[in-house]
């Protein structure tokens, strides 16, 4: 069954009294239950906009979005989110940010238990010893990891992540990717993940399927299945001929878009 269905969705941003920006135009795709789906595309093509439609913070101007077969109406605790700008509550410690969110998801659990879960997830993100720090006392990458820990700790069936490893160094990134995959297929029921990234290798390594978008206005350019067996090994994967082929395909889709844009508008050699 499809976890998420995006049907003929168009999204306009109203810019005050000026003309509207069409961020997304006639988008169609679906995400199956338990699928790991990545969305990649140039900056400004509407990736975050799609994610915000899934969160319920935005609603589509046209078309509809179904979550578990029902139209999304507003936000819900059934979705764990990592925003592009992580946005923790600055007045709560790392631990409190998580346990506060958890107290909403699991109102029956005791405070002590929630704190323990928060500490566990922070530890798993390599943040042991930083539990009581305020966000302002943490680096960008650390804050982002707190946000990831929070989303994962909420243990939702659907996880929405907007460039979650953007502020993290490449070494930590590898560790976090493994942790994410681990968590994704370890539970009784596989979670569904929608993952936005700029990193083609990351998308291939993590995903069952990749949606490549083009900009101006945002459209789905291509859906690409990634059929490598799991668990995947990063190093042997990169030596695989099929991997190289897949990577080239995505790169050329990317450059297509860039080339046509630059050629059409900006370059006047």
């Amino acid at each position, binding site marked *: 069954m499809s976890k998420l269905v995006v049907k003929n969705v168009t999204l306009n941003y109203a810019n005050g009294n000026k003309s509207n920006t069409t961020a997304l135009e006639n988008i169609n795709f679906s995400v199956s239950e338990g699928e790991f789906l990545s969305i990649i595309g140039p900056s400004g093509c509407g990736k975050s906009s799609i994610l915000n439609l899934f*969160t319920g*913070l935005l609603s589509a101007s046209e078309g509809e979005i179904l979550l578990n077969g029902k139209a999304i109406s507003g*936000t*819900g*605790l059934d*979705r764990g*989110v990592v*925003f592009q*700008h992580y*946005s*923790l*509550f*600055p*007045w*709560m410690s790392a631990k409190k940010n998580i346990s*506060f*969110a958890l107290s*909403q998801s699991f109102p029956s659990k005791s405070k002590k238990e929630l704190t323990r879960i928060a500490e566990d997830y922070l530890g798993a993100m390599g943040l042991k010893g930083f539990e009581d720090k*305020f*966000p*302002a006392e943490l680096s960008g990458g650390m804050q982002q990891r707190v946000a990831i820990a929070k989303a994962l700790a909420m243990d939702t069936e659907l996880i929405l992540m907007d460039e979650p490893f953007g502020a993290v160094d490449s070494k930590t990134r590898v560790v976090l990717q493994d942790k994410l995959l681990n968590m994704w297929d370890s539970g009784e029921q596989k979670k569904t993940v929608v993952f936005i990234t700029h990193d083609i290798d990351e998308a291939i390594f993590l995903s069952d399927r990749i949606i490549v978008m083009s900009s101006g206005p945002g459209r789905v350019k291509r859906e690409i299945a990634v059929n490598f067996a799991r668990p995947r090994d990063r190093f042997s994967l990169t030596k695989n001929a099929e991997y190289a082929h897949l990577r080239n395909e995505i790169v050329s889709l990317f450059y297509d878009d860039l080339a046509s844009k630059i050629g059409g508008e900006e370059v006047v050699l």
Partner: protein
Amino acid sequence: MKKFLRLADFIFIVFLILVLVLPSVVKAHSAYLAGLISITWVIFIGARIYNKSSEKVIVLGDALLVVYIFLLLWELATSKFAWLDKFLYPTPGVVIKMFIEDMPFLLKGLLSSSGLLAGGFGLALITAIPMGLYFGYKKRLKLAAKPFAKILGPIPPIVYIPYAIAVLPTFRAASIFIIFLGAFWPIFINTLNGVSDIDKKIMDSARMLNLNDRQMLLNVILPGSISAIMSGATIGLSFSFILLTSAEMIGATSGMGWHVKYFSDFADYPRVIVGILFIGIIVTIITFFFDKLEKYLLRWRKT
């Protein structure tokens, strides 16, 4: 820095000698002045030993230097050479002596003023903050409240004083009401704006948690606007002081503002100066603790 501190020490010693050795031409009680500067200097030396080369110690030294120079000029102009009219300008020693002797009386005035201040300012805090938070959070209420705040907020509350005294049954009730009005608007308006200024990204995060109104107000809106609330409260507090003392000068029979007005009427200028200094000290102490409170409440912010 060392050199500078030595300069301050030098000035201190010269000052002390001048005060003690030069004969006074009027009854000046210069010993009180010498006592005061010696005590402050000992405290300063203590701070220097306890807390070497800290920035705070340097600031304290600078401040003391300014105070000493002012006191020295005052002492020279009154007690030593009597350049100034001795009826209008008491010597520092006389003022210090009177300050000490009148302390019980001053504290009684403080108690009376505190009641008014706590009543008016306290009432403003417990109404303006919750209202500002709730109105700021509910867009429609905010839009409805804004024009009222724009029109009523800027009226200087001092103009209400005579009318409030006429309308309300007691002077105390009138004072509390006026202080309340003066503090209410800055706190309310600042809180309202503070809520609107909360980062949209943080509000988005909060909305993802499906909080109810109470949780939203207590755990997100309140801490998110605490900085604006505190600056509103600081403005409200200084308005409160102005209104408190003004009201007391007009209609009270006790209190810090009354003290100044009452002794002016008797041309008892040493006591007037004592009253003014006392108000200054009290305001400084309250502001100090207010700043501490603000620092504590905003401890999570980047310094």
